[in-house]
């Protein structure tokens, strides 16, 4: 099992292997491995701590385009642009979701620090966007009001 898994990991380059392994084992040797710890946190504070982003400076260089009022919380388009020089990654957190961390985008050489993604917003909540640049986190917020929740039946 372990040997097969290792082979698979190598072949896949930067991804996790078998379904079982993905659920049970957190491979530490793969750079882009899914950050189970951070994604599993149930409060904003814990998620930020897990990301080492508990302190972040407010920034006007992070632009968030999201609807002020979203009728359907299951599909809320969020468009993010970072004008911070050398933005390395963008992190999206929906503060009041059961698991606040929604996505993390790593921008390598050649990528523009821009992303548009549809997210679920369980109840009216701040969308918190962190941008990592020059080894520091910067933060911007945008409130989204939801009339129909996005998580659950």
């Amino acid at each position: 099992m372990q040997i097969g898994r290792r082979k698979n990991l190598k072949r896949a380059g930067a991804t996790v292997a078998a379904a079982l392994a993905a659920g049970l084992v957190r491979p530490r040797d793969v750079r882009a491995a899914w950050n189970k710890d951070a994604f599993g946190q149930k409060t904003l504070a814990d998620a930020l701590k897990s990301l080492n982003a508990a302190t972040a400076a407010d920034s006007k260089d992070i632009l968030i385009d999201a609807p002020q009022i979203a009728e359907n919380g299951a599909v809320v388009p969020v468009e993010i642009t970072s004008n911070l020089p050398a933005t390395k990654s963008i992190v999206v957190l929906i503060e009041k979701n059961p698991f606040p961390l929604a996505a993390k985008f790593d921008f390598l050489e050649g990528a523009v620090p821009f992303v548009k993604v549809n997210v679920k917003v369980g109840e009216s909540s701040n969308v918190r966007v962190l941008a990592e640049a020059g080894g520091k986190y910067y933060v911007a917020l945008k409130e989204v009001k939801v009339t129909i929740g996005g998580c659950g039946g």
Partner: protein
Amino acid sequence: MADPMKIRAGLKGDVADVRVLMNHPMETGQRKDSSGNLIPVHFIQEITVKLNGKSVIEAQVSQAVSRNPVFSFRVKGAKAGDRLEISWLDNKGDRNSTETALA
């Protein structure tokens, strides 16, 4: 198995504007089916965007991304004929990848 992705990529100068649609249920693990049983969590975890075989964007996402996710990305330094490859991996180990040539 997973349905194919749809990629739409356009070039504006040397910046590739990429939109991708992935077919995936993105189950949160919080919904119940008609008989009241929880539907197990099933969602895309990792997404990789490559230009000519080189990773440019690596994303990790959670179940909070909407069903049949749509992403937009931008990649600079691209030119017509470049190969753009997008792949994902979900929490059950399913994977999918699609390639397109920029035009």
